[in-house]
């Protein structure tokens, strides 16, 4: 059983990371979701595996309840984060007209962006050679 779970964690991590390394927002979000499954499962097994022992007082045998509580918190938080990231990615797509995640996909873009930030380009390089 432990081997099965470890391979599940490994696969989820692998797939999550591969998708995270893509260049568009949507696959990256999917990747982060898969990675959060992996970490939730990982956090969960920090209490180790115990079958048929839910931590409801009265049943006799209990698995460790604390990791479960931690995973609950983690799930909720990652839900909030995912919602935020989805809407932000949407906003980025609507304002930029594309969903590339890299900031300066091409050189022109970089120059445009930096010019916008300060609204003024330095030319002291030219000044250095009078």
């Amino acid at each position, binding site marked *: 059983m432990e081997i099965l779970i470890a391979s599940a964690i490994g696969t989820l991590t692998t797939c999550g990371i591969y998708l*995270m390394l893509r260049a568009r*927002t949507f696959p*990256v979000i999917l990747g*982060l979701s898969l*990675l*959060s499954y992996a*970490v*939730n499962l*990982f*956090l969960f*097994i*920090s*209490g*180790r595996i115990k079958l048929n022992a839910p931590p409801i007082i009265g049943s006799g045998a209990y698995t460790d309840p*604390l*990791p479960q509580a*931690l995973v609950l*918190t*983690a799930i909720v*938080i*990652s839900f*909030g*984060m995912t919602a*935020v*990231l989805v809407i*932000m*990615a949407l*906003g*980025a797509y609507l*304002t*930029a007209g594309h969903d590339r*995640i890299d*900031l300066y996909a091409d050189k022109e873009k970089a120059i445009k*962006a*930096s010019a*916008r*930030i*300060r*609204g*003024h*380009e*330095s*030319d*002291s390089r030219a*000044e250095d050679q009078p």
Partner: protein
Amino acid sequence: MSPLLILPIILPAVLAGGIILFASNALNLQRAISVLGTLALLGLAISLSQAPTQAYFLGNWPAPFGIALVLDGLSALMLLLTASLALIILIHTIRTGWDACGRHFHALYLFQLMGLNGAFLTGDAFNLFVFFEVLLIASYGLMVHGSGEARIRAGVQYVAFNLLGSTLFLFALAVIYSTTGTLNMADLAQKLPQIAANDTGLIRVAAVLLMLVFAVKAALVPLQFWLPGTYANAPGPVAALFAVMTKVGAYALIRFGTLVFPTDLPATTTLLAGLLYPAALATIAIGALGTLATRTLPRQIAFAAIGSMGTLLLTVSAFTPQATAAALYYTVHSTFAAAALFLIADVCRTRRDGLTAALYMAAAIAMAGMPPLSGFVGKLLVLDALRDDAIAWTAILLASLLTMIGFARQGSDLFWKSPSAEAPAQSKAAILLCLTALAALTIAAGPITDQLTLTAEALHQPAAYIAANHLGGPK
């Protein structure tokens, strides 16, 4: 148990909740609540900075079973730093009207303070994760405040990268709980030395993973990539507030490096220090080269901020009381210096007049570690603490030079070559306050370093911190 310990966390939360519920369309009311709240936080921080080391047991559950807040010199210092910076930046935001550029700035701002305060006060490793998330998500909100294409896209990267950091945090916590069965930091400090010498592999992994999580926050090379895009694209006052965000990473590194994984812990010994040191050197290098090479002011300040984190963590990596005291001084200094510069960059967007130039020069020399402001004192303290380390000296001094050259060129381009005074002047009160803080830090360097030395000594002898948790068992 003084209820004052929990107030820095619930006060901003309640005020933010109140703003959302009752004042979501009344900007002036929001401003009033925000200012009063921040003032109250400052008052709280001042009163807490005089309090002895103590714990606060949430839900009245004893440590390590419930969550404990622990106040010591370091957390009090960070609270004070956060509150004073927050007040200054709030003034700037209101005077420049940044808060009117989007919705809910003040609620997000208060939540941000809540997250920061919570992270500084908690004595529980998992709770630290939770408050990291609070402060992060609030920072996402502030980062995209007022939006615009570049800002949202930079924001997406910021969020995505920090999600990786948060995931890593959970991995580390899972390893810690799985091996030690506890999450309370003082409890960990007591238990880790008992681990058998032939069974330390996993706890070492946990230590390294945690260090990397904090290194993401602290923008330590090679985990610094999120910072320039984020700081350069964030609204000016938000970037200024973010000066304290990297310090959260530094705080956590200092806290865990002295309390949980001190260098005399057999399991980890100098593992963290040994990894921190080269990373900090690389951070100094990237920061300095970036400051030298970058043409746009906000991005340049962002690199200078990276460089200052390098210096700070290089000092931390020595893990001696003297070095820690120097690092704490440098923390306060670099926060105000970076904040001042970001606020100046904000003002410079529209108008570059003589007064702004003077303020820029003062802030830039502080950042570069030139006299007379606290950067120089901080640099001397750091050099003195690392007195046997020629590499560190060379790195710090060279970085100072490159930073100075970079800022001198930027200033000469901005204010000498293309001054502009057509746009209406913006309020510079907040910038002046930041510089006043730097001046005060310089003039009162003696008493301040004495106090910080006590704080640092307590960090390296954490008996009082551990005792405050009353780990004996259920009462």
